[in-house]
């Protein structure tokens, strides 16, 4: 009987990041067809198509809100990053400055910085989600996509040495901190709409 259970991770993904207002019905239909004998590959493919189609369709439906979210989200991210990463810089300036030459930072500095990045992303995602109630999912995904594109664009155009995320020019740090930032934006946004009181 367990083989007829649809993949729960796929269900979770669509349930939490699917943008369509008919998400529950889509998952129900997919479950019904899966139990009629469709494969797991078919199920996963349908989930990814539903995620992408729902995102594009809902973003197009609420173009102005989506654009606003990208602008507001990036302003929030910039402000929070200035505050948190700026504080981090002031607190550990001496340690970080010395490491610009010898690059052997103590591990706790990396962890503390990743934590500051995580807090920054989470706050950016949560606030943007709260500013765009009822349309959080497509708006959050677009905002996250804009940050990914910015990070990739920055690395290509300016070089990672100029980004604080690289902690003095390390490509590994840049990649890791970028992943932490993007993941925490998504988690912050997810938290914003899973803890939102139900509409009356």
């Amino acid at each position: 009987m367990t083989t007829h259970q649809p993949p729960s991770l796929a269900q979770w993904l669509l349930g939490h990041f699917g943008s369509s207002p008919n998400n529950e019905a889509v998952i129900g239909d997919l479950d019904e067809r899966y139990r009629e004998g469709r494969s797991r590959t078919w199920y996963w493919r349908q989930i990814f198509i539903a995620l992408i189609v729902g995102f594009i369709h809902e973003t197009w439906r609420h173009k102005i809100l989506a654009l606003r979210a990208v602008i507001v989200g990036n302003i929030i991210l910039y402000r929070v990053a200035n505050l948190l990463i700026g504080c981090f810089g002031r607190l550990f300036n001496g340690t970080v400055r010395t490491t610009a030459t010898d690059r052997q930072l103590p591990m706790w500095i990396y962890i503390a910085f990743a934590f500051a990045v995580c807090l920054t992303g989470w706050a950016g995602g949560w606030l943007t989600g709260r500013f765009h109630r009822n349309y959080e999912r497509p708006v959050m995904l677009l905002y996250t996509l804009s940050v990914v594109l910015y990070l990739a664009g920055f690395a290509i155009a300016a070089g990672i040495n100029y980004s604080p995320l690289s902690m003095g020019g390390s490509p590994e740090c840049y990649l890791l901190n970028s992943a932490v930032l993007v993941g925490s934006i998504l988690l912050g946004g997810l938290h914003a709409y899973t803890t939102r009181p139900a509409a009356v």
Partner: protein
Amino acid sequence: MTKRDQLGSFELMVILVLIRLGENAYGVPICEELEKRTGRDVSVGSVYAALERLEDKGFVTSELGEPTPERGGRAKKYFHVTARGLKEVRETQPSLVKLWQGLPELHGGRA
């Protein structure tokens, strides 16, 4: 009628399937019927996106049905064509037929 209110080709297929299915039109039979009639695989997500567009245009309404165990306890969503939707399909048909006429390429002639 604005361009926004016109039926796209996939929307037209979906609305024709809705008319064909009548009262039992929810996601699964809609997809099955589309696959049977077109001979192509359709994705549930694309069908719902088309249904949402049709609903926005006022051609379709929806209502929640009963949850069933084979759907993991999730409710079905039934779709019905509105009078406006039927009128739109009726008006679209002659235009398409007129466009089809006089094209030998579509009747076994040279492409």
